[in-house]
Structures are given as structure tokens and as C-alpha cells.
């Protein structure tokens, strides 16, 4: 059987992303490919992707302050935004996963040896699905900064890890959201690995209008996944 499918691929966006070889971030040294990448034209496997539904998300998964008997210590914040594609179209019903350190900069992870206390009321893990307009919202506490050993007196700026699926394998993205005006940006090689013109896209915006009076501050973080090519690629299959 011969079929003729019109596949609409996704625009390439290499200029938005950090180079895999980023010498300031020591762990990249032995973990970046040295051979050039092979161009993969988008076919069915790349333009499809997992559609992970409501079964993945529990009722309180979006509220990291209500997952234990007591409340976590720290500054309560609402983190909200939209997941859009590169053409400004909302991406609905799409899984968003987050994880983060507690208010003292400590992760609930056996590998984290930073001597700041764990918070018995905070796991630092959240999940939600975007709504029909691509909106998501988490309630959490503001994560702390923490030291790491990349260079002398290295500190990670406060950040929340985000994992997005979008609608296709091609749109898969894992990133980190930062907070405005962090004085630690200048010395952080992970943040600065991103091309300078694109760094501001990783910084959330303080939003007074969305604060909850006498309860929580609010930060807006829109996430843009790749947009589609303007014209379908004709691919002949025999």
C-alpha cells in the first residue's frame, strides 16, 4: 500500500536553548555529544506524543502546601501561567510536572546532603493538567537558594523545575523557572548557559493582581513550546 501523508512538522528553535557543551557548568564536560547531531525530519513518531490524562493527577497535586497534615514553612506563592505553542495557541489538557527545594533550599531527595533541614510538611512535587485555555496554577512555597560545588562558593538561584509534554514528542521540554531580580543570576552557569537574548524567558513575573490578600504572593510564568511549520511537508511513503 502506498500512502501520501501530509505531515506538519515543528519549527526548529536551537537558538533558544543552551549549548550542550557549556564549560561554566562542569557536569557538561563528559555529558555532551561531540559528534554533530543528525537532522531528523519530522515524521509520525515526532509529531505525535503522549497525551497523559487526568488519571495522572490527584486532587491536591497542584497544591504543594496541602499535601501533609501541617503546612510547610516558607512564603506561600501562587505560580500560574499558560502553556502556549510558538504560534500563541494554547495547549490544553497537557501534563505539567514540577519539583523544587523547600524554603531552606533542601530537596526531599536522598542525594541532597546540603545541611538545611527537611520540612516534614513539604515534598516539593506537583502535577496538574492545563485547562482548555492552556492555563495552569500551582500553590507552593518559594524555594530557597542552595550551594553546590560547581565552582568556588557557587549558589543556585531559587528555581522551580518544570516538565512539559505539549502535544508531540517534538515539543517535550524540561526547564527551570526563576524569580525576578535574583542577585544570584550573575554567578549561575546553568541560568547563564542560555543565550543572553533568551534568558529573560526563564524569569517569572511578580503579579500583584493575582496575589491572594493576607495569604499568598503570585508569580506568572508563561511557557512557550515549539510552533508548527507553516506548510506541510509532503512525504511519500511506499
Amino acid at each position: 500500500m502506498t500512502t501520501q501523508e501530509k505531515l506538519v512538522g515543528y519549527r526548529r528553535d536551537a537558538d533558544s536553548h543552551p549549548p550542550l557543551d557549556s564549560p561554566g557548568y562542569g557536569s557538561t564536560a563528559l555529558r555532551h555529544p561531540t559528534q554533530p547531531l543528525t537532522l531528523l525530519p519530522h515524521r509520525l513518531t515526532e509529531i505525535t506524543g503522549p497525551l497523559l490524562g487526568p488519571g495522572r493527577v490527584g486532587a491536591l497535586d497542584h497544591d504543594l502546601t496541602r499535601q501533609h497534615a501541617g503546612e510547610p514553612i516558607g512564603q506561600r506563592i501562587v505560580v500560574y501561567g499558560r502553556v502556549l505553542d510558538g504560534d500563541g495557541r494554547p495547549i490544553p489538557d497537557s501534563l505539567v510536572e514540577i519539583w523544587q527545594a523547600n524554603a531552606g533550599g533542601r530537596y526531599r531527595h536522598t542525594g541532597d546532603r546540603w545541611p538545611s533541614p527537611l520540612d516534614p510538611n513539604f515534598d516539593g512535587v506537583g502535577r496538574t493538567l492545563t485547562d482548555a485555555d492552556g492555563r495552569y496554577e500551582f500553590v507552593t512555597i518559594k524555594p530557597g537558594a542552595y550551594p553546590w560545588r560547581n565552582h568556588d562558593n557557587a549558589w543556585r538561584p531559587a528555581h522551580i523545575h518544570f516538565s512539559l509534554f505539549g502535544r508531540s514528542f517534538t515539543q517535550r521540554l524540561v526547564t527551570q523557572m526563576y524569580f525576578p531580580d535574583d542577585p544570584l543570576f550573575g554567578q549561575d552557569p546553568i541560568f547563564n548557559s542560555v543565550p543572553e537574548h533568551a534568558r529573560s524567558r526563564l524569569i517569572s513575573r511578580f503579579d500583584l493582581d493575582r496575589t491572594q490578600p493576607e495569604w499568598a504572593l503570585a508569580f506568572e510564568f508563561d511557557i512557550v513550546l515549539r510552533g508548527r511549520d507553516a506548510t506541510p511537508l509532503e512525504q511519500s511513503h511506499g
Partner: protein
Amino acid sequence: MAELATTPSQTVGPYLHIGLTWDDGPYVAPDGTPGAVWLRGQVFDGAGEVITDALVETWQADPDGRFDHPDDPRRSSGWRGFGRSDTRDGGYAIHTVLPGALPGQAPHIDVSVFARGLLHRVVTRVYFPEHTYVDDPVLASVPSERRDTLIATRTDDGYRFDVRIQGERETVFFDV
């Protein structure tokens, strides 16, 4: 419509396990599925050391070569097609069934690897030794001396597919 610039990628860091692992993550096919196999492998760095803080994600068609997705004109129903496994025990393991061939392509699984030290995922493909590749356009685009880095090997309970991020026999990675 105005074009929006993509949000940049960042590393998953060393603590990805708390956020990105699921109990059923490795099970593309549930336990007891007839014909299911284990796809296992290790991820190596440029010094040949095993990377134990990586996450491997897989995306594949069902045995008829279909996806449960609106962009697949032959859409299947209820096929998850997605697996994820971390490497804290020294390797990853995905329980699945072999994908079918797609129009014009040999059966394959798309793979993303995330890890501390990877500022962006790297993407590769798994092919299977039972199939012939003469007509597969992706394999044909890879230099012949590197093609075997994309082909799994048979094991007692399925297949093995190692990923070498850097160095000798470096895996072919794709610009998607």
C-alpha cells in the same frame, strides 16, 4: 499570528527522581501482556562511567504502527506508547511490546535522555536487529559506520540498547 519564542531548556539536575518518576513509568505495556519484552540499557558518559542520575523516556507506535493521537490518521485507541525509567540502579528498563512498522519506516522507538549535566535532552532512536533497514530513511541518513549505535541487541528477556553520550562509539543523536 505572531510567532512566540520558545522557552529555553534547562537541565533536570540531580534531583529529577522526586518529580519525574512514576510507579508505572517503565510499563508501556502492562505486566502479563503477551509478547512483551524488556528494553534495557545503560547510559555512559565520556569517561565510560555509568550515569546513574539519568532519565530515559521512550515514545513508540503500537504493534500495528499506530499512535493514539489526533495527528495519526490511523489513530489507535488507548495505547499509551510512552515509558520513562531512571537509571539509579545502574540502568534503565522499559517493559513494552515491539512497535509495528510505520509507513516507509522500519519499527523504531524514539528516545529522550535527560540528566544532570545535560542542559537539553538528547534524542536518539532504537531499531531492532530482526528488521532490515535498507529502506529506512532515518538510518540511511546516518553514516554507515555509526549505524549500529542505533540498533538494539537481543537478550534473554528482550533487547539491550546502551546510550553513549560522548566518546568512543558515541550514540547517534538527532536534531529534532
